[in-house]
């Protein structure tokens, strides 16, 4: 703010010239109202709340929220990779043509002709992987630090919506190159949407009630993957889903602020409180003792039971931390994109499937389940898992442990036990299925309804539920039961993903290593 008083020029011409000379200053003043880097805490607060983009943050932030070990920066990594995806995605849109005859060639042009096109496409692909992984890990972080508990239940639901949108964005992007990988992955994906027919066919009611056919027609606009499907996936990928994601993401951020920032335990850190520049032990009176005033007051002020809020200014501490995480995400995507090309197979050929035709890694766990029953593995189990996740904060209403990894007593033990139970169950199930097959190998004429009801996937889910109920009974704690189920879910998801990635080869047969796949 300039306080220099300049004499008023005598004529309008002189005033004009005077203003013209001062133009750089006045524009700078109009833009940066402060005119210099903030120097006092008051100016630092203004830097935060006078800025549209920063004012979603509070002016001060608790030091616990800044601790890298609490959040691991996963939320920021997810959002940062989304920003990278938007920028690179718009650049790819400059050349991409959503048509079955042109799409493949335009991707090839991007890869081989367009200056930096290949690098941009690689960054786009790798940031998508980073985003999916970060979103999953972020969910696990929020769960294990009890950060979904009151009053943050609603934001947990928003987060689950964002998970679905992230996966949907990734799925719709998969078709766009229109190569063999894309064509067959989307053929499989759209037939999973069609899979309620497995049940309606078994009950012989498809003629009257056909949700599967409806879903597939809505997705593809036809009965096969072709021009209509490509346009639909394109519109979803570049407009509808990103806009929906930005909307939910805004609510997600806003709710973090309205719910009181990141979840953290009540009271000061480790019995220490900072007050007036010095750290003091917080005095915690024993319930069995009577104290005189002098015992409570030490130093200039009393810190009884709870210290002052342990906060620091958001500007610069929080913003620099966020920028650092953003840059780490950018660096990660750049390094991956520089060293590993995004795949591009041959032009889509509806006559010859890829063998094996594998979905992207985060859907491979589902693909393994789908190889037992398309309807149960592709729709029922994901729906059960999603609804189960959505119910967690409403079934576990007891507070405690917020903002601490496995905070309440006994949680670590439950998590470790569930890790081993989940691991044994899923590995046992896979080993059994690979070695002995399933119902249809033993009874070739068995009715499809039996396979829908009893297949390795549904048995695994039932085992996990049973384990969680047992923990509920044993430990008499809803949170422990939730930890048990969530841990099993994570272990099952990871092992199935690993198994389908490494150990499934052509004809979806079991191989120890991809190097053993038959050459053909």
């Amino acid at each position, binding site marked *: 703010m300039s306080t220099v008083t300049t004499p008023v020029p005598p004529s309008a011409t002189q005033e004009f010239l005077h203003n013209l000379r001062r133009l750089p200053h006045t524009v700078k003043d109009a833009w940066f109202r402060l005119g210099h880097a903030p120097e006092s805490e008051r100016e630092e607060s203004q830097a935060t709340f006078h800025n549209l983009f920063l004012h979603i943050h509070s002016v001060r932030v608790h030091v616990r929220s800044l601790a890298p070990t609490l959040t691991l920066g996963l939320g920021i990594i997810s959002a940062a990779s989304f920003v990278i995806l938007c920028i690179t995605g718009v650049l790819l849109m400059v050349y991409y043509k959503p048509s079955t005859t042109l799409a493949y060639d335009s991707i090839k042009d991007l890869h081989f002709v367009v200056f930096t096109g290949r690098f941009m496409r690689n960054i786009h692909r790798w940031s998508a992987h980073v985003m999916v992984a970060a979103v999953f890990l972020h969910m696990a972080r929020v769960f294990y630090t009890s950060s979904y508990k009151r009053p943050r239940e609603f934001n947990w639901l928003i987060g689950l919506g964002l998970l679905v949108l992230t996966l949907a964005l990734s799925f719709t992007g998969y078709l766009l190159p229109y190569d063999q990988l894309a064509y067959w992955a989307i053929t499989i994906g759209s037939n*999973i949407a069609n899979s309620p027919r497995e049940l309606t*066919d078994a009950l012989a009611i498809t003629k009257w009630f056909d949700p599967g056919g*409806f879903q597939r027609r809505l997705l593809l606009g036809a009965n096969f993957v*072709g021009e209509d499907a490509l346009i639909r996936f394109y519109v979803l990928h570049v407009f509808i889903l990103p806009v929906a994601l930005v909307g939910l993401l805004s609510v997600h951020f806003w709710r973090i602020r309205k719910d009181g920032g990141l979840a953290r335990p009540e009271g000061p850190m480790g019995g220490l409180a900072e007050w007036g520049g010095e750290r003091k032990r917080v005095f915690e009176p024993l319930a069995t003792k009577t104290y005189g005033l002098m015992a409570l007051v030490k130093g200039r002020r009393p810190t009884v039971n709870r210290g002052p809020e342990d906060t620091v200014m958001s500007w610069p501490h929080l913003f620099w931390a966020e920028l650092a995480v953003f840059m780490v995400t950018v660096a990660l995507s750049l390094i991956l994109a520089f060293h590993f090309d995004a795949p591009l197979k041959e032009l889509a050929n509806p006559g010859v*499937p890829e063998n094996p*035709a594998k979905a992207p890694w985060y859907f491979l766990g589902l693909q393994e389940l789908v*190889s037992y029953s398309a309807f149960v593995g592709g729709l029922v189990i994901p729906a059960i898992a999603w609804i189960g996740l959505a119910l967690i904060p409403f079934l576990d209403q007891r507070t405690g442990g917020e903002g601490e990894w496995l905070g309440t007593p006994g949680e670590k033990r439950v998590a470790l036990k569930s890790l081993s139970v989940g691991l044994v169950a899923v590995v046992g199930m896979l080993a059994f299925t690979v070695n002995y097959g399933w119902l249809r190998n033993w009874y070739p004429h068995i009715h499809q309804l039996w396979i829908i009801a009893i297949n390795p996937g549904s048995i695994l889910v039932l085992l996990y539920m049973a384990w969680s109920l047992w923990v509920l009974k044993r430990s008499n704690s809803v949170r422990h039961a939730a930890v048990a189920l969530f841990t099993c879910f994570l272990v099952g998801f990871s092992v199935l993903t690993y198994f389908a990635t490494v150990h499934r080869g052509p004809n979806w047969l079991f191989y120890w290593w991809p190097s053993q796949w038959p050459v053909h």
Partner: protein
Amino acid sequence: MPELNEKQKSRLEPVTIRRRSFLSVAALTSFFSAAGMALAGALRLPGPAVLPGPVRRFKVGHPEEFAVGSETRVEEANFTLFRDAQGVFAISCVCTHLGCTVARSADGFACPCHGSRFARNGEVVRGPAPRALPWLEVGRAADGQLVVYADNEVPEGTRFRV
């Protein structure tokens, strides 16, 4: 006249509706009915009224071209045409599990995607496929050629006598 509250009024008198509450009810009703209709219209749009795609009816040749006991794979239409002593029949080569193209194996058909196996007559032998490979309708065109109607399913064992 002082205003009477609801209890003091006779129950025969009409219920008074305040101007503001009438307006708010009218505004809300019109908003939600219009929004509902607009949403229904917008959601109806992506449901295709006409399914695009070519007619899936394929002329495969004259019956004499297919020897008894032969089988012919028609790539562009994704079915296999068989001829045996009783007649001609076509079996679809689209896996009933998730739509991959099945390949002919020693004893029937095998799906590369999720390992479904089918017998020579299309019946599921193992794997996740929920039902048998469909048999397709076979007929004859005016010029004497065999025609396969790839969209029309017929019961297993239905043969076209030639």
